[in-house]
């Protein structure tokens, strides 16, 4: 099995890792130390102390709250989006591009979708304003719930003790 350094995992997260190593990581069975190193790297990128359990976006993590050990979703800036079993998007600021003018801001005219068929919904952090996600659904479609991890099984796979309130 391959092993990687923390620097390599950090470069992977930043997107600066050389392709040959990325290719090897993709092709080879996952190395045992990866979860630990990955979490360490993520933890170093945030200002809060709550323990990161899993990433759900480039700046959005599932963490174990240091206050009450609840498992919640948290922005890098510290803004809390609520319990991890609920859709965090419902607690985000939402901007909907649903007409030609708004579309023109991101795509040239005639190269954007017809907003009667498709709109863009952008989800922002209410505290720091970072964009966490963009959806491109039909206008009537409900807010999508992208990921609902089964953390209990996940920690069984990792063969590690799971946080108390999972």
């Amino acid at each position, binding site marked *: 099995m391959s092993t990687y350094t923390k620097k390599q995992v950090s470069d992977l997260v930043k997107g600066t890792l050389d*392709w040959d190593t990325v290719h090897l990581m993709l092709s080879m069975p996952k190395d045992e130390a990866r979860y630990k190193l990955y979490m360490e790297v993520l933890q170093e990128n945030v200002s809060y102390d709550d323990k990161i359990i899993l990433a759900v976006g480039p700046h959005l993590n599932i963490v174990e709250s240091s206050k009450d050990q609840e498992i919640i979703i948290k922005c890098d800036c510290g803004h809390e989006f609520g319990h991890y079993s609920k859709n965090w998007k419902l607690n985000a600021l939402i901007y909907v591009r649903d007409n030609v003018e708004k579309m023109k801001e991101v795509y040239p005219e005639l190269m954007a979708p017809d907003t009667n068929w498709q709109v863009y919904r952008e989800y922002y952090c209410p505290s720091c304003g970072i964009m966490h996600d963009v959806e491109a659904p039909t206008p009537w479609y409900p807010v999508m719930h992208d990921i609902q991890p089964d953390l209990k099984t996940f920690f069984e796979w990792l063969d590690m003790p799971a946080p108390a309130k999972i």
Partner: protein
Amino acid sequence: MNDLTNPVEVLGIDAGGTMTDTFFVRADGTFVVGKAQSDVDEANAVLTSSVDALAHWDTTPEEVFPQMVTCVFSGTAMLNRVVGRKGLRTGLIVSKGFEDFHRMGRAIQCYLGYAFEDRLHLNTHRYDEPLAHIHDTRGVTERVDSKGGVVIPVRLHEAREAARELVEQGCKAIVISFLSSYLNGTHERAVRDVCLEVIKEMGSNIPVFASVDYYPVRKETHRTNTTLLEAYAAEPSRKILANLSQRMKDVGAKYDVRVMASHGGTISWKAKELARTLVSGPIGGVMGSRYLAEQLGYENVACSDIGGTSFDMALIVKGKVSMHQDGDCARLVLSLPLVSMDTIGAGAGSFVRIDPYSNSLKLGPDSAGYRVGTCWPAGGVDTVSVTDCHIILGYLNPDNFLGGILELDVPRAKQCVKEQIADPLGMSLEDAAAGVIELLDLSLRQHLRAMISAKGYSPSDFVCFSYGGGGPVHAYGYTMGLGFKETIVPAWAAGFSAFGCATADFEYRYDKSTDIGITKDSTTAEKQEAVNTLGACWKELADKVMEEFKINGFTEDDVTLTPGYRMQYLGQLNDLEMSSPLSDIGSPEDWDKLVATFDETYGRVYADAARSPELGFGVTAAIMRGSVETKKPSIPSEPDAGPNPPAEAVIGERPFYYGRKWVTAKLYKMESLLPGNRITGPAVIESDATTYVIPTGFETWLDGHRLFHLIEV
């Protein structure tokens, strides 16, 4: 000492990524092999390696170079330049609206050259950086249709503007490649002339390459890639070879350096189309095999070359090497005729790991390469390699690895194999290491068998040649039970590619795509037209061949021209390459002769019943080969000295693990063995550059040409 009655005549050079091998041959066929670490300055490495080789004969390059008649080079520098994308910044002019096709890589360059699993998984697919950046690409309005007719005349003012911008942006060369230009090259040539004019006006002198002048063949991605390589990678190589040639001249050389090309011939370093030498290393071995087979009367040969990182296989059938029309290399599709070879990424230096999910051994796909394995701490490798297993089991001599240049730490290798392989599998150290070797042998054997049977042959029709640094170590393993007529290991296995380069002809080959189709309803006039078209293509290609030979001072009398063609039954996808039965064609009856040759060959390659003459016949490409006589190495010929090895060849004994037990293997020195000597396994025959393993149940004897014959008893 230098012996003037038996001068050194031939030099073959194989400048690989890690080692530069030289192979010197005297007139009577005796040879020496030299090795040196490869260098950024290739001329340095070649000279160092030459000194190493000639020391065996107590002579020096200064004494030997002036008497030599031929020198062939093959190297990986150009390939590395392409893989590392370190070539000349090149501008590309294409048909307007098609600016993106080059970087789209025919949608297959994202997985080309990958291991099977990585081809299947989309997340590993990736496009390498294109040879010409999109910002250095310009479209010019023009269009030629699929019959060669002009649909939109070329707008030369756009070409003028494009050329000016590309030069201003800092491009060091310009390549022009239009759609269907192989059918009608007028647009490309007009744009080429405009570019040259603009470049001159701007006071620059960068080269311009029109695809039609170089590779007039169908498939624009292939053609564009190949023409781009000519500018991007071959121009810098030309300078390096000029330097090598000059450095040799300084030492007194009078010959012209030739370079191994992908079609299996060698061409001058001054050749116009130097990109043809991009792939050369493994081809040398195949050419060497063909030459040996021809000299010794073997018709069918399976060539197997095992190095540290890969296993290359090729077939010689009835003395002929089969060719790929569009080979691919360095993850680029190319229009280069290429000796067809099958390569798998498993070699003597492959890494060994345990797959944690299936708890089974996994070899490669990466390898330790020059870093050997955990047995060489200075190499900095922590993962077990196949070499480690060989060292532990007594296959290789840790005190004389690569002639003793490297100091190996056997206890460290044992510890690593125990921790990484044996313990997780719950096996003994020896059984785990033996399992690794069995697995490698098994996978090589399966690939060899698959390659032969997929082409409709049986191993029993073939003699297997085994060479490369790792060939003799594994020869018994990957041929066992396959039923080859014979397995042959040349005593110079490690320098075999360099030897092969020296045996290759001085030969240019040019191809041109054609669209000729004749059915049973075609009239005589139509056949006449077909013959005229093919004849005109041959003439055009022959002129190109002669142009190249003239650069080296040859005249038409010196050159033997061999026309060829690729033919298919109309509507089928595969075509076959054929040497023409006629040196020139002119009448409709000649067409029938071409057809008869194809029909006969098709029946032989596939089956008589598969022939489909009722579909009609098409010629997809015209081919012209031109060659001149060159000096080739003679095969050594020594008298029989009886079955018992001389006393000085016996150098001791070593514990050797095979068949799940330790046995005592006798050790021999390869150089001291004499023709006729017969050795029964378990035995290990050592030489500086390679190790030949004969386990229990095998026997080997050395013939008068210094070829070992391996026999299962």
